[in-house]
C-alpha cells in the first residue's frame, strides 16, 4: 500500500510538474538561505576570534597619553625601560612584560629593498604577541643587554628580501647599520584590519633606541597576564604603579592608557555574533516566506485537488489511501526540496567562505533545523487541505468550487 501510494505520488508530482517545482522552490530557497547565512556568519565569527587570539591572550597594552578620539592621543611623556622593569618586579600575576620601541626602515639585501617596520623589544615580546619561531633562535641575554645588531624577521621579509631560503645568518642593511638574522617567525597572515602581520623585524630594544630612534623612549609596554586571572585587578595595579612613578597627584588624570584585549575580544566577537544573528534572522524570514509560498500554491491547488480527491473516492479509494498518497507526495516534494536546498547551501557557503577568506564552519544542527522546518511546512500544507477534502462526502468533494 505504501509502495502504491509512493507510485501514485510520484506520478502526481510529475503530472503537476510546474506546481511541484514552485512548491519545492520555496523550500529550496528558504533552506539554502538559512544554512548559507549561518555558515558564513559562523565562519566570520571564528575568523575574528582566531585573529584576536593571535593578538595574544590576556594582554594589556600600556601607552603614554590618553585616547582623545579616533586616532588622536593627548600628550604624555614616554615610558622608559625602568618603568617596564618596575611593572615586572612589583605587579603580581603577570607572565611577560615587553617594552617596545618602533621605527620605520628600509631594509636592503643585495639588490632588493623593502620598506618595513622594526620593533625593538625583548624575548617577552614573543609571548605577548603569540609569536612562534619557524627557524633559528630568540635573543640571548647578552645580545639584549648590549643591544647587538641581531634580528628576528617575519615571513614577508624573508620572502621579499631573501627569497625565502636560508635566512639565518644573512645580514640585512637598515640605513646606517646592518644586522644579522638569527630567527624566522612562523607566519600569522593578515590581521583583521587587513595589515600584513608578517611584515615585521624584531630587534633588541636597546639596538632600536640607539641605532634608529636615538632616544631612550619606550612607546608601549605589552603585558601578558596569567590565565584565569582577572585582568582588571592587574590593570589597577599597573595604573597605580605608573601614576606613582609619573608623580601624578590625586586630582590629575592618567597621562597614559591601559588597553585590555579581552575588551576588544568581547566587543568584536559580540559584533560578529550580532551580525550572524541578524543574517540568520533575515534568512529565517526567507524560510518563512518560502513556507508561505508553499502554502499559497497548496491552497490555490486545493480546489483542483479536492475534486481529484472526490474522483478517487468516487471510484472506490479509501480515505486513508488518498491521504497516504497526499502525505507521501508532500514528504517527497519537501524532502527533495530540502535536499536540493542543502546541496545549494553547501556550494554557496563553501564558495562564499573561500571568497571571503573565512573558515567553512558547517553547523549540522542548522541543517537539521532548516530541513525539519521546511519538511514540516510542506507536509502541513500538503496534508491538511487533503485531509479536509477526504473527510467530505465524495459528491461534496466533486462539487467543490
Amino acid at each position, binding site marked *: 500500500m505504501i509502495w*502504491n501510494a509512493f507510485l501514485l505520488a510520484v506520478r502526481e508530482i510529475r*503530472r503537476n510538474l510546474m506546481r511541484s517545482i514552485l512548491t519545492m522552490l520555496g523550500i529550496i530557497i528558504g533552506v539554502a538561505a538559512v544554512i548559507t547565512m549561518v555558515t558564513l556568519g559562523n565562519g566570520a565569527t571564528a575568523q575574528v576570534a582566531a585573529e584576536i587570539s593571535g593578538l595574544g591572550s590576556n594582554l594589556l597594552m600600556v601607552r603614554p597619553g590618553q585616547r582623545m578620539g579616533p586616532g588622536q592621543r593627548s600628550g604624555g611623556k614616554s615610558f622608559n625601560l625602568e618603568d617596564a622593569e618596575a611593572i615586572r618586579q612589583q605587579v603580581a600575576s603577570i607572565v611577560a612584560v615587553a617594552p617596545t620601541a618602533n621605527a620605520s626602515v628600509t631594509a636592503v639585501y643585495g639588490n632588493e629593498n623593502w620598506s618595513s617596520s622594526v620593533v625593538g623589544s625583548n624575548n617577552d615580546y614573543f609571548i605577548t604577541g603569540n609569536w612562534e619561531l619557524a627557524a633559528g633562535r630568540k635573543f640571548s641575554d647578552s645580545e639584549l643587554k648590549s643591544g647587538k645588531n641581531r634580528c628576528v624577521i617575519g615571513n614577508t621579509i624573508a620572502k621579499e628580501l631573501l627569497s625565502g631560503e636560508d635566512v639565518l645568518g644573512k645580514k640585512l642593511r637598515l640605513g646606517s647599520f646592518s644586522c644579522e638574522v638569527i630567527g624566522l617567525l612562523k607566519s600569522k597572515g593578515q590581521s583583521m584590519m587587513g595589515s600584513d602581520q608578517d611584515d615585521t623585524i624584531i630587534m633588541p630594544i636597546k639596538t632600536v633606541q640607539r641605532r634608529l630612534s636615538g632616544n631612550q623612549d619606550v612607546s608601549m609596554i605589552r603585558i601578558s597576564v596569567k590565565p584565569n586571572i582577572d585582568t582588571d585587578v592587574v590593570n589597577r595595579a599597573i595604573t597605580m604603579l605608573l601614576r606613582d612613578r609619573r608623580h601624578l597627584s590625586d586630582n590629575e588624570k592618567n597621562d597614559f592608557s591601559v588597553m585590555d584585549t579581552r575588551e576588544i575580544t568581547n566587543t568584536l566577537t559580540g559584533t560578529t555574533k550580532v551580525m550572524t544573528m541578524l543574517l540568520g534572522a533575515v534568512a529565517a524570514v526567507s524560510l518563512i516566506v518560502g513556507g508561505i509560498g508553499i502554502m499559497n500554491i497548496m491552497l490555490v491547488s486545493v480546489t483542483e485537488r479536492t475534486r481529484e480527491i*472526490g474522483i478517487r473516492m*468516487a471510484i*472506490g*479509494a479509501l480515505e486513508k489511501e488518498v491521504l497516504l498518497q497526499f502525505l507521501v507526495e508532500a514528504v517527497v516534494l519537501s524532502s527533495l526540496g530540502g535536499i536540493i536546498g542543502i546541496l545549494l547551501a553547501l556550494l554557496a557557503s563553501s564558495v562564499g567562505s573561500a571568497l571571503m577568506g573565512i573558515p567553512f564552519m558547517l553547523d549540522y544542527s542548522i541543517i537539521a533545523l532548516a530541513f525539519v522546518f521546511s519538511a514540516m511546512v510542506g507536509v502541513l500544507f500538503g496534508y491538511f487541505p487533503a485531509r479536509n477534502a477526504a473527510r467530505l*462526502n*465524495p459528491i461534496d468533494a*466533486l462539487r467543490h468550487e
Partner: protein
Amino acid sequence: MKSREAPLIEFKGVVKAYGKGGSEFLALKGVDFQIHQGEFVAIMGPSGSGKSTVMNVLGCLDTPTSGEYLFHGVHVETLNRDQRALLRRNYLGFVFQGFNLLARTSALENVELPLVYRGLKRSERHAAARKALELVGLQGWEDHAPGELSGGQQQRVAIARALVTNPKVLLADEPTGNLDTARSEEIMALLSRLNSDLGITVLMVTHEPEMAAYANRLIHFVDGKVERDQYQEAKQ
C-alpha cells in the same frame, strides 16, 4: 416480473434534504422502488426533479437524510465511510453527468484508476483499460488527456472507467447528454449489450425518450418523487 427473487437494490422512503433549518430543501421526498439483478432502468423527469440526487445516493456518493437503502440486503445507510468506499470499489460503476476525469491525465490512466485501488498489476490494468477503451470506440486515443478530447470522447472515457471493473451495477447520469444521435445510439447499444450479455444491472438517467426506449423499465421522477414506474419492451 422478477418479483420472486430478493431485489438487488431497494429504496424505502428515501428522503434527501439539502440545507438546514428554515432553508431546508427536499430534493427527494420519500422514494420507494426495488431493482432486481439484470434490469436496465431508465430514469426520466424534468430538470431539478431529483434524478441526479437519487443516482448519487444509489452510488453511495451521498447519504440519504432518512429512509432505507438496501444493497444485496445490506443496509447501506448504516455503513461507515470505508465500507461504502469498498462497496463502490467492488460493485458499482459510476458515470457522472459532468465526466469528472482527472485533468492532465491520459485516457488510459483515467480508465485504469479504479483498478489501481483494486490492487491489480500494471500490465493487467493496462490490458483491461485498453479493452474498455476499445469497447467504447476509443482505440488510438489512449494517450490523450481530457483537455485534448471532445465532450463526447470524454463521456466515453468516463463510461470506459465505469466499465473497466466489470461492476455489478452501472450507474450512468445522462451518459448520452453530450453526444450526437449516432454516437448516442452506439452508447445505448453498448449499455444494452453489457446488460444482456454480461448481466450488468444498468441504471441510467436520460432526457431523451429515444434513449429511454433501450431500457426495459422506466421510472419517472417529478418533484422529488416517483410519479410513474413501468416496465416496457426494450428496443434492441
